[in-house]
């Protein structure tokens, strides 16, 4: 065996070992479901008389739990359909990577509920959740196909732009208060973002692609 052949062999082994640790469940149905839940949350939240910080946090906590529970059920259904274990090592890695960002996001929400600022200041939590969710997705992206990491970056950029644009008052505060209603912001950023990514994945994602 020539040394270059041995080096190629080692590279192939490395690729296979990395591939083995990658999460392979189809993300399109999960993203479309979460997008639908998020958009519905935006519409329902604005329609309900929930224009207080505590009501806002509680409502979006319910939306998040609905999204997470549905996602877990979809992942479980895919695993059972493929005769594969649900709580596989790649699934565990992805869950562990998501937890820190999500946990800090929960704490930020609790802090908002505790401080209970005026309704027109509640939008501030949206870019913070957006940034933390982007970080969580970016971390999980190390154990999934690379698209998820790019999706995480979109949340980071959106969160950053919202924070600078709204917080830095580059956008007229009167216009912003009317256009960027917190429920609409949440529905648009999280719901719309997931739905768009889910539709993109629906047409591009290939399951069980051989190496």
């Amino acid at each position, binding site marked *: 065996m020539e040394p270059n052949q041995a080096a190629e062999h080692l590279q192939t082994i490395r690729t296979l070992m990395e591939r083995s640790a990658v999460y392979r469940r189809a993300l399109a149905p999960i993203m479309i479901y979460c997008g639908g839940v998020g958009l519905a949350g935006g519409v329902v939240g604005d329609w309900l008389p929930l224009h207080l910080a505590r009501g806002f946090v509680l409502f979006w906590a319910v939306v998040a739990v609905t999204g997470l529970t549905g996602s877990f059920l979809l992942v479980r259904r895919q695993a059972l359909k493929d*005769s594969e274990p649900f709580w*596989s090592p790649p699934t565990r890695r992805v869950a562990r990577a998501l937890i820190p960002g999500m946990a800090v996001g929960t704490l930020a929400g609790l802090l908002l509920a505790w401080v209970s600022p005026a309704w027109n200041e509640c939008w501030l939590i949206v870019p913070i959740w957006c940034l933390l969710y982007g970080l969580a997705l970016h971390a999980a992206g190390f154990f999934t196909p690379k698209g998820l990491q790019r999706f995480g970056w979109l949340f980071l950029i959106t969160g950053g732009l919202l924070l600078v644009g709204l917080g830095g008052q580059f956008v007229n505060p009167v216009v912003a208060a009317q256009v960027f209603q917190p429920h609409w912001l949440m529905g648009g950023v999280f719901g719309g973002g997931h739905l768009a990514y889910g539709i993109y994945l629906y047409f591009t994602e290939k399951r069980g692609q051989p*190496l």
Partner: protein
Amino acid sequence: MNPEPFLQLDRVIHEKGRLAIMSMLAASPALSFTELRDALGMTDGNLTTHIRTLQEEGFVAVSKSFANKRPLTTCSLTAGGRKAFASYIDLLEQIVRQHKPR
């Protein structure tokens, strides 16, 4: 070139399909038959044959169970399999090192 490391390479692991299976299993505690088949793009028959060969060598352990009333076959590396795989990697690295300019 010293042919010694090449001659020591395990013939069972050196085959392309079996090496792929060993590599996948080396990075995970266990993988299901379908996960291996889908990731490697092998046919059921081909994968079964390779796994049987690796099982006979004592490199791979196969366990059968039921998940939600469906049969679930999972494969994992045995301690001997991990050792053999590590030795195989060592030998490949030796071959590469032999020709590295000093």
